[in-house]
C-alpha cells in the first residue's frame, strides 16, 4: 500500500484514476468472447491445418464481418425506400436509448453550436443552427430498428443529407461521410457514401414537429432509415467527407460497420 502511494502523482484524484483504469480494462463478457475464440483457435491447430499462430475465431469472425460489409453494400438498393407509416403508428413515448442515462446525455447550446464541415468538400464553412434551419426540410415517419432487436416508429423532419452534400460541394465519389458527436466518449460513426446519398438519409432537426429534444440528439441527429439505430448519430458536431475508414464508437467494438437494414 505504501508503495502504491509512492507511485501516485501528487494532486491526482485517485477515484478518477481508478475509473479511468477500469475503463481501459475489457469488460468481463468481452474477455469471455476473446478467450472462447482463442480456445477455438487452438482447436484448429490440433487439426493440423495450415494456420498461423495469430489465427483465432475472433480474427476469422472479423474477416467474415468485413465480407458481410461488402455483401450488404452490394445488395444495397439506393432506390429502395424504407417503409413509411401513418402518424397514428408513431411509438409513444419514443424510447431514449444510449449507453448512458438521459441525465448524462450531452447538453448542447444551440446558440453557440456550429456544424463543422471537413474533408473532401469545396466549402468548409461552419453552419449555425439558424442557417441550417433555412434549408428546405421534409418530414418522414419511419421505423428505427435497434441492433438489439427492438424497434420504434418516429416522425423526423429535416434536410436530406444529399441536398446538403450538394450545397457544400462534397466529392460524392468519396467513400464515407464520417460523423463526430458531442457524446461523452465522442461518438463517431462512418456512413458509406451510397447510404449518405439515399433520399431518406436526413439531417434531422425536428421530432414530431417539434425542435429535436435533447433526448433524441439536439441540435442535430442523422436519421438513416436504411441502417440500424446505432448508425444514426445524435448530438452531431462535425462531418467529414473522406476516403479513410475512421471507425466508430460501436463499430470499433465489433458491431458490423455496414449494418444496413
Amino acid at each position: 500500500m505504501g508503495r502504491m502511494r509512492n507511485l501516485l502523482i501528487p494532486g491526482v484524484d485517485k477515484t478518477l484514476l481508478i475509473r479511468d483504469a477500469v475503463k481501459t480494462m475489457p469488460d468481463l463478457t468481452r474477455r469471455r468472447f476473446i478467450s472462447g475464440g482463442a480456445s477455438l483457435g487452438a482447436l484448429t491447430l490440433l487439426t493440423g491445418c495450415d494456420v498461423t499462430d495469430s489465427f483465432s475465431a475472433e480474427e476469422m469472425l472479423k474477416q467474415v464481418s468485413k465480407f458481410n460489409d461488402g455483401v450488404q453494400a452490394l445488395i444495397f438498393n439506393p432506390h429502395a425506400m424504407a417503409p413509411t407509416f401513418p402518424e397514428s403508428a408513431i411509438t409513444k413515448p419514443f424510447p431514449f436509448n444510449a449507453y448512458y442515462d438521459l441525465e448524462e446525455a450531452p447538453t448542447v447550446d444551440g446558440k453557440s453550436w456550429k456544424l463543422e464541415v471537413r474533408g473532401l468538400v469545396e466549402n468548409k464553412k461552419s453552419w449555425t443552427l439558424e442557417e441550417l434551419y433555412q434549408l428546405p426540410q421534409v418530414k418522414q415517419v419511419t421505423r428505427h430498428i435497434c441492433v438489439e432487436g427492438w424497434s420504434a416508429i418516429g416522425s423526423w423532419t429535416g434536410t436530406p443529407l444529399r441536398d446538403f452534400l450538394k450545397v457544400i460541394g462534397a466529392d460524392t465519389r468519396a467513400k464515407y461521410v464520417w460523423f463526430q458527436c458531442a457524446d461523452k466518449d465522442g461518438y463517431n460513426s462512418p456512413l458509406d457514401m451510397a447510404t449518405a446519398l439515399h433520399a431518406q438519409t436526413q439531417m434531422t432537426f425536428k421530432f414530431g414537429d417539434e425542435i429535436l429534444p435533447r433526448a433524441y440528439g439536439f441540435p442535430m441527429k442523422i436519421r438513416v432509415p436504411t441502417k440500424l439505430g446505432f448508425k444514426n448519430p445524435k448530438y452531431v458536431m462535425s462531418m467529414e467527407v473522406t476516403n479513410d475508414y475512421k471507425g466508430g464508437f460501436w463499430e470499433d467494438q465489433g458491431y458490423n460497420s455496414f449494418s444496413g437494414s
Partner: protein
Amino acid sequence: MSAVTVSDEHAASTKAKVIQPAWVRALHWTNAFAMVLMIMSGWQIYNASPLFDFRFSPSITLGGWLGGALLWHFAAMWLLMVNGLIYLTVGLATGRFRKKLLPITPEGVISDTKAALTGKLSHDDLTKYNYVQKLLYAGIIVVGILIVLSGLAIWKPVQLQYLTALFGGYEAARYVHFFCMAGIVAFMVVHVALALLVPKSLRAMIIGR
C-alpha cells in the same frame, strides 16, 4: 455369364447396405454444427431485447456479448444457407425427398405413432422411414426454410421489405423467427433422443451403414 450375375448381386447388396449416402451425412453434420452455432448465438442476441419474460443463461449462449453473438450469427449464417441450399437442390434433383418423405398419410402417421408409443415400431429397415419420421423430417425442412426467410426478413427489413411484409411486418417476423427456433430445438431434443434409442440409426448417419 455367372460371373456377371455374382458381381451384380454383390453390387446390389453393397448398394442396399448404404443407408445414408456420403452427401447426406456430410450435409447433415455440417447442418448440425451450423445450427448449434446459430441457436447459441441467437439466444445471446435474444437476451439483448427479449420477446418474453425470460432470458437464456449465459452458460448456453455463444459470443459473450451482443456484438460477439452477432458476429457468430452472421458468420454461421453463410454455412447454414450454403449447406441448406445444396441439401434442397440435391434432395429435389435426385428425387430423394419424394422417395424418402412422400407420401405422408394421416392414417400412416396415426398408426405409426400408436406403434411407436407401444414400442412396436420396427427399426429393421433403416432405409425406409416410418410415417412419424416422414412427417417430422418433412416438417423440419419447412421450418428450416421458414427460419431462414424470417431471419432474412428481420436482417433486411428495408431491402427485403416485401419478404418482411409477407411475415406481417418486422415485429411479427421476429416472433416467427423465435418460434421456428423453438420448433427446431424441440425437434433436436426428440431427434437426438430417438437416435440414441436406435443406435443403428446414429451409426448409419456417421459411417453410412
